[in-house]
């Protein structure tokens, strides 16, 4: 592979069907690698391996760069209004179809921890769906959303605009542990 590859991230192009499928798979792979490495980083920190934790964190970030590049070639990055619509659509699918189906199967099979993990996710996706919808309406008028803090529960992902509650209404984690953006 020689040299045409300078300096800038790759751009959208018209893709062969096979290549499109491959880039989608590569985007899925890089995204999952990134998330795995972040979880591994937390584990290494727990074991007192601070420098390994940092290595995992850095490599997770590198995989994010690859994920972004693949997404860019797939033309998956629009304007913000469009992105908010795509985000809303993704959350809606998870709430209406994906998690209810998985939840039914997990209950049928008596997988208690899976049911909990699915419930945490589905409940937070409902927060996200509502927030994305309201934000898109604002963005469509050319305006940013308000500069209010956004708080996220580190256990279940419950997301609130404004201050953190005393206790997470979904999983009971104390509000002081919420991560504030």
């Amino acid at each position, binding site marked *: *592979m020689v040299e045409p*590859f300078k300096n*800038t991230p*790759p751009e959208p*192009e018209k893709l062969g069907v*096979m290549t499109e499928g491959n880039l989608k*798979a*590569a985007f*899925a792979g890089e*995204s999952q690698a*990134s*998330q*795995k490495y*972040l*979880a591994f980083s937390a584990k290494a920190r727990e*074991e007192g391996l*601070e420098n*390994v934790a*940092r*290595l*995992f*964190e*850095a*490599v997770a970030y*590198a995989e994010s*760069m690859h*994920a*972004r590049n693949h*997404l860019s070639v797939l033309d998956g*990055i629009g304007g913000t209004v469009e992105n*908010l619509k795509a*985000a809303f659509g*993704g959350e809606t699918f998870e709430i209406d179809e994906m998690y209810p189906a*998985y939840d039914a*199967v997990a209950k049928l*099979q008596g*997988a*208690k*921890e*899976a049911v*909990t*993990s699915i419930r*945490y*996710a589905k409940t*937070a996706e409902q927060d*996200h769906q509502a*927030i*994305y919808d309201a*934000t898109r309406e604002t963005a469509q008028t050319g305006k*940013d*959303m308000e*500069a*209010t803090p956004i*708080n996220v*529960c*580190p*256990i279940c*992902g*419950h997301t609130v605009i404004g201050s953190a509650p005393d206790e997470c209404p979904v999983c009971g984690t104390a509000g002081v542990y919420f991560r504030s*953006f």
Partner: protein
Amino acid sequence: MDEVFEKKLPKPEKLNAMTGESLHAAFAGESQAAEKYMVFAEQAEQEGFPNIARLFRAISFAETRHARNHLRVMGGVNTTVDNLLVAFQGESFEIDEMYPAYQEIAKLQMNLQALKAIFFAIKAEEDHKRMYADAREAALKGADIADQPVSVCLVCGHTVIGDVPDKCPVCAAAKEYYRTFA
């Protein structure tokens, strides 16, 4: 922070095949959502929407919580020695099989931008594979790796331990384009 919450987080359990598949798919979905939202945050920033950018980042963080929870239930988070092996094997698969196959097809279909994205990824995965192998050797002896900064190229993901080069050897981006984890 995770150890504080060990009791609250969903735990690994023996899963039947169908629930295992569901969680795999959910992990894939949450991981991709988290990445997408980070990219969308950058885009919002560029358009002069700093608060929407912050929203995307916050929700991306929420999705990483879900991805981690699903991964834990599947038994995917183990000791660091084991995690480093899993990481090494993942990189090896991408270098030896996945990206070479995708590369051939992209060449056949003359998709130059796809080739660029694949080339950038494969080069960085080679760095990662080596770093994980070294880290595993240290961790097997119960030792941490040396306390050195790790830097990542924002364009191509090139990863380097120690000093940042003047120019990225893979994509030629200037050293200012590196993010350093120190």
